[in-house]
């Protein structure tokens, strides 16, 4: 961090050429076509979601880098922006860990009496009145 706020920070005065913006726009269009195409291939769902997020991240990289001038901005602003995603990933990670591992312990012990009653790991919610056997 500059020793004191007094030093004149080099403000992102960078002016990109019209051509570079159009090139970036072209890349984004191509990536959009790619992501649509990939989804047509019928990959198994967990792989296809990884690919979709991957392509979206690449597009995000281009938008943030060139359109949002992060390439020529101070390192700290880039850190601030990426820092936000760290907390988002923490939120996703811990919550999905919980959702994914509910009832593991009981199943891991193959507790028959428990399994018969539990039915699906997560009792399908009986949303219409004629309940699906479980409590409603």
């Amino acid at each position: 961090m500059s020793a004191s706020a007094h030093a004149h920070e080099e403000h992102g005065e960078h002016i990109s050429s019209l051509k570079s913006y159009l090139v970036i726009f072209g890349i984004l269009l191509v990536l959009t076509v790619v992501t649509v195409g990939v989804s047509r291939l019928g990959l198994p769902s967990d792989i296809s979601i990884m690919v979709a997020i991957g392509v979206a991240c690449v597009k995000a990289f281009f938008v943030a880098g060139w359109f949002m001038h992060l390439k020529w901005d101070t390192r700290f602003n880039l850190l601030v922006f990426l820092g936000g995603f760290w907390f988002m990933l923490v939120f996703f990670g811990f919550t999905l860990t919980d959702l994914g591992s509910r009832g593991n312990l009981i199943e891991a012990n193959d507790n028959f009496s428990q399994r018969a009653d539990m039915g699906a790991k997560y009792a399908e919610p009986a949303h219409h009145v004629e309940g699906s056997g479980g409590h409603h």
Partner: protein
Amino acid sequence: MLSHNENEAEAAGGHEHPAWQAHHFYSGAQQKASVKLGMWAFLVQEVLFFSGLFMAYFAFRYLYPDTWLAAHELLDWRLGGLNTVVLLFSSLTMALAVRACQLDDMKAVVRYLWITIGCAGIFMVVKYFEYSHKFHAGTLPGKWYTFDGIEGGAPEVFFAVYFMMTGVHGLHVVIGIGIMLWMIFGPIRKGKISKDYYPLVENVGLYWHLVDLIWIFLFPLLYLVR
């Protein structure tokens, strides 16, 4: 230690203050850097706001995998794709508006802003068709779900997440349109924006690119993923 004479403060302040510099900043560069950092902090807050909606998406995709894939077939990916292209183009024109500002070409700035507002309008119109189609088909959240094409699971939760995500994103697009209109008829018309001081246009640009960024993630997750 407090240095007591005024003019020494002047010298310490460097060159004579530009007109737009607020009294509590030492220099123009410090003000610009502060405004930029403030905007990035605001964008981080927006990212975390949408993270809640994406969390709901991933949570219910995990809890109801099969109905999730069945329900998302009902979304028209062509309309989604069109909206993606429209939003990407509006992002380009917004970036060009900021560039025009750097080149002090105010007329080009206004022209690009109008194109961006136009694209945003198209985006909302396409969204209107998508929504009205869903209202007729009965694929709505919660107890309004009357569609019977999908069996088992909870397809209405998918549509709850769909309407929440696209609805809040649409709201941000409308807010963007409002700010751009205000900018055209307010600061730009009054000549407050110039080559030396244009953080307002730059910040609106950053906000708009973030709205586009969120749609870039939202489109494949909702419309495409098999």
